[in-house]
């Protein structure tokens, strides 16, 4: 690369670095300011412009120790567990959609929707939910067993995938009340489990779509030769496909981890004292006297540290050479 092109490249990289880092720098110094220093107009450099203080840090980490620690642990547990489960379920489904052919019959899908409507009508007429759902499921199974084979027209893999991604289209505002009622019925409100299940379900479609593309770039010859050697699909998936797809897996994991880590609206409803997560704690700093920037900055700073650490650790896996070696060998 010529010197001039190198200079341009570095100029662009450093330019965007400033764009990225300046707001974060502002957060960092705001966390070191007194309320009066924030409100009286901008000051930029600690020690030169203003005298930094650790008051906000002390308040959040020492005075409010338990109120900070509990949501923090919740966020870590919910984020990591839900991202891992979503990645496991989603990448197998993605692999299945790339390598197997599914032909769900339109008639069977219609039967399913029909029995669902039946359950709803039954519930509207006053039947208990358990009986209505159980009964209509039984009707569905019987109908599929008896007339299911007569249906000819079928959907394909792409329709399954599109259905999955379409589940993200309804905004959280619209789904939050039904989900609340759902978890209330099974007595899981304000538990980590409720949040984990919700985040797995909402993030699965994204995992499936991203991993589908990464998997489809893997040459099928690799898997075919393994299949000829007698490896089962499970073994092929675990020992051949997954290792080759590591860059995609890592990128997708970070993607959904961040979604779960930072989600606000669903958490607002599904958790109160016990399972509260950090985004709620951040938003709670907007008190009646206006946002308390200094506390908010501290909370955001401690919230991003683990994600950054994980990014640094995982970034090296998004590096070149993994696939190239596998194909050539």
């Amino acid at each position, binding site marked *: 690369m010529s010197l001039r092109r190198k200079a341009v490249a570095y100029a662009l990289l450093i330019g965007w670095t400033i764009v990225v880092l300046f707001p974060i720098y502002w957060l960092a110094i705001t966390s070191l300011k007194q309320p009066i220093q924030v409100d009286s107009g901008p000051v930029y450099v600690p020690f030169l412009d203003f005298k930094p203080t650790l008051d906000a840090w002390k308040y959040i980490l020492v005075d409010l120790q338990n109120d900070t620690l509990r949501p923090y642990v919740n966020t870590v547990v919910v984020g990591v567990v839900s991202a891992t489960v979503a990645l496991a379920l989603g990448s197998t489904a993605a692999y299945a959609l790339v390598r197997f052919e599914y032909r769900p019959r339109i008639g069977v899908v219609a039967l399913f929707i029909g029995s669902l409507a039946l359950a709803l009508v039954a519930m509207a007429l006053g039947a208990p939910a358990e009986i209505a759902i159980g009964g209509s499921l039984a009707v569905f199974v019987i109908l599929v067993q008896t007339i299911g084979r007569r249906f000819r027209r079928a959907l394909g893999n792409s329709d399954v995938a599109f259905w999955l991604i379409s589940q*993200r289209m309804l905004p959280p505002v*619209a789904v939050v009340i039904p989900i609340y009622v759902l978890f209330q019925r099974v007595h899981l409100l304000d538990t980590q489990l409720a949040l984990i299940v919700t985040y797995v379900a909402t993030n699965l479609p994204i995992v499936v779509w991203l991993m589908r593309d990464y998997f489809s770039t893997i040459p099928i010859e690799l898997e075919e030769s393994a299949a000829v050697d007698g490896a089962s699909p499970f073994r092929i998936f675990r020992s051949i496909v997954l290792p080759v797809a590591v860059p995609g897996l890592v990128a997708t994991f970070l993607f959904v981890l961040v979604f779960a880590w930072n989600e606000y609206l669903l958490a607002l409803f599904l958790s109160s004292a016990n399972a509260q997560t950090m985004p709620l704690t951040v938003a709670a700093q907007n008190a009646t006297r206006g946002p308390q920037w200094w506390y908010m900055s501290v909370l955001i700073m401690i919230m991003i540290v683990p994600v950054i650490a994980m990014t640094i650790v995982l970034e090296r896996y998004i590096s070149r050479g993994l696939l190239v070696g596998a194909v050539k060998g």
Partner: protein
Amino acid sequence: MASSDSPARFESRGPTVPQAGLEATSRSLIRRRVGTWTSDRVARLVFIWPAISVVLFLSIFPLVVSLYLSLSRLQLTSSGIKIDFRGLVNYQSLLTGTEQSHFLGVFRTPSPLGWAIFTGVGLLAAWGLVSSVRGRTSPLGLVLRAAGALFLLAITWLFVESVFAPGGRPGALFVTIVYVFAGMGLQYLLGLGLALLVTQRLAGRRLFRIVFLLPMTITPVGIAYMFRMLTDTGKGPFVPVFDALGLQDFTWVNDPWGARIAVMIGDVWQWTPFMFIVLLAALEAQDHEIVEAAHVDGASGWQAFRYITLPAILPVTTTILLIRMIEAFKIIDLPNILTNGGPGTATESLTLEAFFDWRTLNLGRSAAVAYLLLIVVTIAAVAYVNLVRRRVTTNA
């Protein structure tokens, strides 16, 4: 296990067995073939059903309940909450009634630029239809495409009538559409440019990679508050800049497009890393020896990108654009916290409108807004998958 074994044994009695003089090697080959066949069948089910059932479990119920709520009106009575079934009243008020100016906007005669845009989109739609008549599209496909083209024309007409018309004012629907397409385009181009830069052999590229991922680690609520700090015209860091530019009296809060641009800047800052990380993984996964071989053969950097790199990352590009489009239609935190939807309703997105309705306990109208959003996104996504994605990837 027994149930999955029996068809396999049945299969093994098939045409391969009767061969006389079965040798040890071929027998083991048969067993292997049969074994694969059985575990194939199990794998087909085991691989996909966990994901499907989890999504199914949490999607059907909310979908149905929201539909019902959108067709009803919620009333607080002395005995608690009462839900009245009202039919399409909520939709009617949003599309033609009292909430029209809020949802769709205020319409005026378009300016020449508006007419030009409308004519352009009209010609594009006509060209698309003509070429699909000439091609081998099924009758049903033709009808659907004609309907899609009409929908596009109607939306474009309302768009230019409210955005590119003196005196007009876009409603939440069109503000959202502006956020989605302006944001998507900028984020993709930035993400791709940055990903290409950090795959070059430059010292310190790992550091840049990590720095570029930083914005996505911050919670959207936090980013929204952070940008409220940064755009503050009294105590934000850019006050001297505003003063120097003679904009002392300028506030984001008073100028509709200023406020919208502030929201979009925050959106780009927040979401570019997502484009970046996915494109980076795709770029790193491609075979670099091919690119290097192309360079040895005398291909320019642009040619190598256009004919080798771009085709390799196109599938994942279309995926990330689709995901980003779906997510962008749901933008809420930034306009809510940064501008509170203001000035007036200028920065309100559809989700935010639904949220405001919902906060005032107008659950019916909130659900109706959400469902209209669902319809718009579904149409946009179906059109996108059929027109764009199917052309560049086999697993659309």
